[in-house]
């Protein structure tokens, strides 16, 4: 079945800079913004953009991700001539085992999957960005510009540009140079890690790249520079909406706080629904002592304490006298009587016992940061978890 464009979603990253939150799960399945997990955003974008075939490349701790994605039904991706497919690394007859050695290698190893659909173009996505984007518009521009590769770019400040892969653009508007994290950026167009390739071209470059033992098999480091060197047409697709990389604790916390503002990213927009696989729970209950201000609360929560500037996932409990301020509480987290959680991320099913205190307000020092408790931890009665602390599952506090 011939397709105009299929998507390949790179979801194998360990997310090592999320530490305790990705100790046992892959980054794309980290809970986000109340009802979601990070991967809901690219999957929903695909469905809303009319892309009905998505290969999800997994590698690191994929169990939870696999069961979360399932048959793709929450995103309407359970179609009979497409759908969402989990693609783990695999072994062919007589081959030595090999993990995906890089982003390009992950696609290279799945050439067979892609060829099944005989697509004109392949959209490459990563599973760690929060944004709403119509890939159909990007594809249209890709075809209009007759590009071998179109790269989604975001305008950033020149200071920020040093943290990104930067596209330098020639007079004709096509990309003429790519610099990874330049010290002295010549342009403010940052790559968002979203590519549409002409599949025939990409296949050539993937095969050449695989044959090169010195390559690190990475799109940004190898494939894009190789295409530029060969004089291929690379087009920058300018995106000006909300986009956040949530690869670090601070950026994950920031992006969650952004969800409290509907002007940054509107999740209530019926024309661009973000789907999620969520448990069916009773509506949340606000008790006699509840105070809920400027916060997101989700089904199954039971709130009898004070919640302010916070994002609560399903089935979170905040008991009477407890305070939750500027925090992200993942599914099933429990904050018991008179405990305080501030400027913190609390993992799934972690229990904060009475009078414990997690996190602290910013004090202007460099050592300050968001406190993080991984999933399935019990923070004992009266315990203090300081700012910037990182508590792993299995630790006793």
């Amino acid at each position, binding site marked *: 079945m011939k397709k105009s464009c299929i998507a390949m979603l790179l979801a194998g990253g360990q997310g090592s800079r999320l530490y305790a939150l990705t100790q046992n799960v892959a980054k794309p399945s980290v809970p986000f*913004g*109340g*009802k*979601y997990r990070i991967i*809901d955003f690219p999957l929903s974008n695909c469905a809303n953009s009319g892309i009905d075939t998505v290969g999800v490349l997994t590698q690191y701790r994929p169990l939870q991700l696999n069961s979360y994605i399932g048959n793709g*039904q*929450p995103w309407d991706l359970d179609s009979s001539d497409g759908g969402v497919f989990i693609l783990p690394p695999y072994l062919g007859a007589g081959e030595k085992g090999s993990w995906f050695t890089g982003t390009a290698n992950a696609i290279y190893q799945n050439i067979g999957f892609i060829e099944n659909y005989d697509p004109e173009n392949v959209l490459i996505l990563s599973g760690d960005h929060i944004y709403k984007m119509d890939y159909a518009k990007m594809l249209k521009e890709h075809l209009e510009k007759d590009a071998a590769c179109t790269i989604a770019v975001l305008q950033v400040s020149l200071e920020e540009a040093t943290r990104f892969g930067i596209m330098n653009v020639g007079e004709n508007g096509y990309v003429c140079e790519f610099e990874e994290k330049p010290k002295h950026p010549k342009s403010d167009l940052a790559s968002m890690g979203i590519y549409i390739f002409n599949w025939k071209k990409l296949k050539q470059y993937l095969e050449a790249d695989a044959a090169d033992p010195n390559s690190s098999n990475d799109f940004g480091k190898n494939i894009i520079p190789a295409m530029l060197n060969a004089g291929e047409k690379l087009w920058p697709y300018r995106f000006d909406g909300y986009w956040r990389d949530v690869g670090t604790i601070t950026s994950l916390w920031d992006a969650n706080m952004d969800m*409290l503002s*509907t002007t940054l990213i509107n*999740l*209530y927009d019926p024309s661009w*629904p*973000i*789907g*999620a696989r*969520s*448990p*069916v729970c*009773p*509506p*949340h*209950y*606000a*008790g*006699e002592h*509840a*105070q*809920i*201000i*400027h*916060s*997101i*609360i*989700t*089904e199954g929560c039971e709130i009898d304490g004070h*919640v302010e500037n916070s*994002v*609560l996932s399903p089935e979170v409990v905040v008991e009477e006298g407890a305070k939750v301020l500027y925090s992200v509480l993942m599914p099933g987290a429990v904050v018991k009587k008179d405990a305080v959680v501030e400027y913190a991320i609390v993992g799934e099913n972690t229990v904060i016992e009475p009078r414990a205190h997690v996190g602290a307000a910013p004090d202007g020092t460099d050592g300050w940061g968001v406190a993080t408790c991984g999933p399935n931890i019990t923070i004992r009665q009266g315990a203090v978890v300081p700012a910037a602390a990182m508590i792993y599952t299995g630790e006793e506090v």
Partner: protein
Amino acid sequence: MRKYQGIIFAYREEPELRELTANRTAASLPFCGRYRLIDFPLSSLRNAGVLDVGVIMQRDYQSLLDHIGSGKAWDMSRRSGGLRMLPPFGLPQYHNGNYNGTMEALNAVGSYLRDSSAENVILMLGSVAANIDLAAAIQKYEESDADALAICMDHDPMGVHHRFNVGPDGYVNGLNLYRRGAGDGLPSLEAYIFRKDILLELMDYCRANNHYLFHRDAITLFLSRGGKMTVYVHEGYANSIRSVEEYYQVSRDMLKAENRRQMFPVGRPVRAKTHEDVSTYYGETARSVNSLVGDKCIIEGDVENCIIFSGVHVAPGAKLRDCIIMKGCDVGEGAELSCVIADKACKFSPASVLIGSPKLPTVVPKGTEI
């Protein structure tokens, strides 16, 4: 081969539910912030592993069809068996008018019952708020040598009901029809398990003799013939909903933690269609006390003792007391509502005031703009 099949009676139009059932049956009444009443019997059946279920409908079933869909939410979208919607196309004489009673409704879907190889049938009402542990009831039924089992309540319900007298041997020895308040025996929850061949025989007898009521005719006949019926007592919340007053009362009962614990016990989840994937946002000026609030709401006003369904906007300065506000309603700035049941998608303009009384809540029909 599956041993049990379920039948849910979802055809009833309860006149005392007034505007609330103008375009729907009692079984598809929105309940507890995100459910429909029929989610409870469907979930009870699903949680007991009964996946072959027929839903008997008659009129105004569009909303029921929309809600139930293929039955996927209850794992009843099966290659073989699964959920069957049974609209009134069984026999020519039922094309017009209402079913006169349960036996007539059963006879109209007789072929559905006969076609299934299940040996036992579980009969349930679509409009009872209860999370029944059917697996436990089935176990009791199988451990007895009874041909039928009646599920009863452990408390006296609000309205008219039937009661079973139970002998020392644990079998029913009498039926007291149309009782109110306390009395002899156990109040029926109107959920039954029957050996199918016996139920089919009762159906044939009722059709031949122009009888159509389940309790007055069929059960009385069954007992008078010496039929063995055992009883399973459902411990926990249970109330049928047949009037606006009952709907209001039962809804508000869900604000009590103990009732919620009984209605949503761990291990027997209430399954329903998922339609909202956005959480609820509380604004800077929000206040929400002793209330149940669904997802995708924007709460900026003051809400107390309320049940708010999904997708409701309560603007700043609005004050809601003892209200039930269904999906998609919009309450304007400074509006004041007290003891109001607002059906889906109502709009209350800024500063509007609507006050009902706790005994007689004001019902605002679907889509009304005030």
